[in-house]
């Protein structure tokens, strides 16, 4: 049974699903979307995924979307190797981590990325009118408002400060948890580790690795995560070099700016 995957190379939610597929040894038919060109807002895709976001998988004729839901589905369908802790309490810990992404952490990461780096991609070569048209394409009104301000205002956006503070809290929580167990939901690697790998990687891509200095458990976890074959296959092989160089350049320029925002409390 083939798995079709609608995704994007640098999308954190697509990364989660590709890592899971790699851990499970599953190949997929790739439908790679250019999100800056708005592929995800086309009517034929909205018919599959009404939220107009990636990823979506089609497996055995069934459509499954929302990365947290897709990852649990893949673990249910392909139980070997298991990516959920065997005990109910471990599963609760795993789900508590994953849920935080849906409740604001994912949005915070998108805001940080946009304000520091991706805003330049949105603006490049576009007239004001074209830019407005792209931003107006977001289906969700809350996301539309946020992205519009983030693209136009950068780190001055009123959404940036709470977003970067939320990301720092994520690293603090990870540091505390990884001081007790080797992986996030216990002593085995799980969907929680998969779900957070893209976000911690993003912090590194945006040149904010100074945040790891006081959080050595997080740095060590990222190192161990990167050593897994699934990281190579699900993340690295899909990295877009243009994105990496932009994040490196703009992230480097903004290190002091980010430190200043955090120091201001």
């Amino acid at each position, binding site marked *: 049974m083939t798995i079709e995957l609608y995704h994007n190379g640098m999308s954190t939610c697509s990364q989660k699903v590709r890592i899971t597929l790699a851990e499970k040894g599953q190949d997929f038919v790739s439908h790679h979307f250019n999100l800056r060109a708005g592929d995800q807002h086309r009517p034929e895709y909205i018919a599959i995924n009404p939220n107009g976001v990636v990823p979506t998988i089609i497996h055995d004729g069934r459509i499954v979307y929302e990365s*947290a*839901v*897709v990852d649990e589905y893949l673990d249910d369908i392909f139980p070997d190797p298991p990516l959920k802790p065997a005990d109910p309490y471990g599963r609760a810990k795993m789900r508590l981590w994953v*849920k935080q992404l849906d409740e604001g952490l994912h949005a915070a990461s998108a805001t940080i990325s946009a304000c520091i780096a991706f805003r330049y991609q949105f603006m490049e070569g576009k007239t004001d009118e074209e830019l407005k048209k792209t931003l107006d394409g977001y289906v969700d009104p809350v996301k539309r408002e946020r992205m519009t301000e983030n693209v136009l205002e950068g780190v001055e956006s009123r959404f940036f400060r709470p977003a970067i503070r939320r990301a720092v809290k994520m690293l603090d929580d990870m540091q505390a948890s990884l001081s007790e167990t080797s992986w996030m939901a216990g002593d085995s690697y799980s969907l929680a580790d998969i779900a957070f790998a893209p976000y911690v990687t993003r912090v590194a891509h945006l040149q904010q690795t100074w945040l790891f200095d006081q959080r050595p458990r997080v740095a060590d976890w990222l190192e161990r995560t990167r050593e897994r074959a699934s990281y190579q296959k699900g993340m690295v092989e899909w990295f877009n070099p243009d994105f990496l160089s932009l994040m490196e350049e703009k992230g480097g320029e903004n290190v002091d700016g980010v430190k200043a925002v955090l120091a201001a409390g």
Partner: protein
Amino acid sequence: MLALYHNDMSTCAQKVRLTLAEKGLDWEGIHFNLREGPQHRPDYLKLNPAGVVPTLIDDGRVVIESTVIMEYLDDRFPDPPLRPADPYGKTRMRLWMKQLDEGLHAMTGVLSSSIAFRYQHFAIKTEEEIRRTIENIPDPGKRERQRENILKGLDSKFLPGAVRRFDRLIGDIDAALQEADWLAGDGFSLADIAYTPYMVRLTHLQMTWLWDSRPRVPAWFERIQMRPSFQTGIGDWLNEKYLPLMAEKGAEAADRLKTMAAG
């Protein structure tokens, strides 16, 4: 032994009590009066850093967040199962539950506060005291929502969006019930449990007009209310101090809310 920190009218506590009742589990309750703020005390924050109910304690293990607690209970006490047996059914169940965490739950707070609960604050505090309490809320998003909802009531800028979101939700529920008897398929599941408290709240706020033209929704809600779990998980805990206020203020607001839904 299971212990549950909860509150009678809290929607998230209702979900967990319904699940416990469906499983036929006994539990010991620690009931919080949320208006007095015991959920913000340091000893409780150690269990539940967000300072919200419910929190489940199972043999010394602390489990928080209602959707996580519900799946935990189904993992820990698998009989009777409250998740679809097939993986695809589970995805449908989880898509429903996730929507609550992504905004619907917060919007229920908008409806309840701006239509009715704001009057509870005005009954015991001056406007100056209320303003001061609001400015002390640490989370800026929640602070802004409460400022609008409590001080402005039906003029809260968050209310029209919340009303429209619930109108869409009821439409989505109606569409799902066209395909199957329950939200995630042909079996009653955690998804049905998760939405029951919100149906109850909309009913208390006199917003049953949302399903006037969607007959599958009240039929489904009727079937839920006939389950014994509804009585022990929700019915037995209804707070008589809240119901007349919601009925009175909900009725007064109905016409304006309908206009918002149509906008």
